[in-house]
């Protein structure tokens, strides 16, 4: 590494800087809430993807807060059609560009509701037919745009307005859908999860997907301060804890095979993550036996992820995910 640093000339440093992402596909001044994970994620995605793209955007917060007519935050060709057809709109754009012999890459943006639930069929069709589209799911784990209703991405026991806790319920009764495995089961070349708390990992995965000819899928864990019940300046901290507890495994799959995971050297207890968020408040009533049981259940889910994806790893080359975001001397990033 030290030899590398010495051999870099001023010229190549200038070149390196020029190669750093400068392009922003989404301008500031949009109407997202303070601390919106999705807005940050969308900016990082478009920075990494570059200007030669077209975007199909599902109905949802991202569409609403970026395009209040006659204003738009997008510096990229962008279309919003409906909630549940984003996969098909993107597929059509790709088919047209193919017919016209243009190399522009098509991106599809959807939230978890538009991806896991209502838009799932169109997404599945797009993946099965092998369209050259990068589908990005901004996963904030509920229908935030309509006022925090549960989706199939909402984690177990989370409180939403349609999964409220009460005398007979402890929040959402069902598990978070494993969308990545389902998507990967279409035998697509690349499917990955990433988190807005790890920008370099996010950018790296976007760039990787951009280079692949064929359908690719990236799920970005993006906190919603309003829906999750935490302060806006806690978004990154909360997103980071989701990864560090093992509740949101950051992994990469090639043709359904696990090829990489962001390691956690010392997994944090899930309560470190859950305690930060109002949506899990009902789990911290010490006098409620159900709460204790649910906490144990959620810890078991994290433990399962850690085991399944070998998140702890071993050996000297396994880095703590706390260091995953740092750019080391010489420009080398984690992973």
């Amino acid at each position, binding site marked *: 590494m030290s030899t590398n640093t010495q051999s870099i000339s001023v010229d190549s440093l200038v070149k390196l800087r020029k190669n750093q992402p400068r392009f922003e596909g989404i301008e500031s001044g949009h109407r997202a809430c303070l601390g919106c994970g999705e807005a940050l994620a969308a900016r990082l995605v478009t920075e990494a993807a570059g200007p030669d793209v077209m975007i199909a955007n599902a109905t949802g917060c991202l569409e609403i807060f970026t395009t209040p007519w006659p204003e738009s935050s997008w510096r990229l060709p962008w279309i919003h059609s409906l909630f549940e057809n984003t996969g*098909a709109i993107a597929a059509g754009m790709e088919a047209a560009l193919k017919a016209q012999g243009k190399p522009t890459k098509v991106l599809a943006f959807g939230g978890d509701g538009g991806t896991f639930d209502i838009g799932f069929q169109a997404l599945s069709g797009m993946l099965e037919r092998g369209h050259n589209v990068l589908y990005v799911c901004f996963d904030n784990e509920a229908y935030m745009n309509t006022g925090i209703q549960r989706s199939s991405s909402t984690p177990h026991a989370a409180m939403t307005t349609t999964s409220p806790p009460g005398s007979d319920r402890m929040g959402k009764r069902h598990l978070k859908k494993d969308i990545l495995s389902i998507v990967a089961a279409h035998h697509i070349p690349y499917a990955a999860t990433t988190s807005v708390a790890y920008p370099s990992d996010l950018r790296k995965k976007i760039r990787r997907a951009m280079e692949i000819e064929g359908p690719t899928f990236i799920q970005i864990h993006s906190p919603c301060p309003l829906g999750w019940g935490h302060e806006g300046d806690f978004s990154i901290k909360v997103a980071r804890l989701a990864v560090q507890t093992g509740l949101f495994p950051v992994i990469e799959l090639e043709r359904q095979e696990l090829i990489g995971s962001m390691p956690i050297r010392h997994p944090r207890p899930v309560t470190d993550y859950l305690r930060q968020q109002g949506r899990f408040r009902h789990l911290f009533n010490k006098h409620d036996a159900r709460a204790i049981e649910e906490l144990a259940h959620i810890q078991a889910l994290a433990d399962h992820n850690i085991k399944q994806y070998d998140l702890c790893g071993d050996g000297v080359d396994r880095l703590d995910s706390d260091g995953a975001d740092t750019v080391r001397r010489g420009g080398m990033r984690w992973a």
Partner: protein
Amino acid sequence: MRKALEGSQAIALTVALCRPQVVAAYPITPQTHIVENIAKLVADGKMDCELVSVESEFSAASLVLGAACAGSRTYTASASQGILLMSEVLYNIAGLRIPMVMTCANRALSAPLSIWNDQQDSMAVRDAGWIQLYCANNQEAVDTTIQAYRIAEATELPVMVCMDGFTLTHTLEPIDIPEQAMVDAYLPPFNFARALDPANPISIGTLVSPDHYPEARHSHHHALLDAADEIIAADADWQQLSGRSAGGLLSVSGPDDARIGILTLGSIVGTLSDASDLYTDLPATKLINLRAFRPFPVDALRFACSGLTDLIVLERALSPGFGGIVAAEVHAALAGMQDVPRIHSFAVGLGGRDIPLEIYRTLHRKIDAAEPGPFSIIDVERDRLPVEDHGI
């Protein structure tokens, strides 16, 4: 050159002549033969397009929408349940003012399940904001499909070409398929001003507040009204090239001085035309073939109806709880006219019920009464009704 072709086969050949770059469809009877024939043309290298066999009609409509926004001429076709499934997208396409052409192979709606012809499907989406053109025969369907591309691209409105399922789609007729050069001369390459382009990025489909929504609707409504001129011009220009008119907004046959008129849409026109030749003992009758249902040709209809004492509106759909859909619009269009004819409203041929030539005599008998009766489904067999409905 005239060839004996099945309606669907003719439409496939015609679509190929229009050079769409992206075709997407999902199979549904009676549309299937159109798409199968297109697939074969593509497989044989006779049609150069991206043919995408999607997983639903909803995605078929969405896919062509995406493709059109990316700057390609597109085509899709559907029917019945497929039209209903894609209805949300149909509204979206029209509201976004995206030019495209689709064929509706008209079929009844479930329940009860029926694969046979009526026009309830396209009537169900009449307010989606599409131009709707109905075809009386397969030659009209061929000529209308070509014209539809020109109309769509000139007006930035989508066009639905409606042809009766089975009666037209599955019927072999001698049809003149025009030469490629003629279609190329008529239809310039697609150049969509609002196509997405990284060099000139725009946002399509933004959120519109109450400050702007009514204006968007106003513009859309007037674009449809104004499209009437383009429909007439497209037909006139095509007639110059091919020698054939597909009927403009509406076409009228029969004696000018006839006092009785029958207005209908689609393939019933042929049945009535043959019947009028056959039943010469009946009073002279004008046949009005309503080709453009959207935009609704109020002025042309008033002109066509002047001098009539009785107008029978015969349609293959209804609005349950009200009655005839087309009849209601005809009533509204003729209201305030001097000497408004008495309007008689009937549905016929629902769910593929055969429409015999005798219908012509039955209709003439029905209008003998002093005042028009209420709307009815004219070919209901009362003994086939459930017992509890015998009294109604």
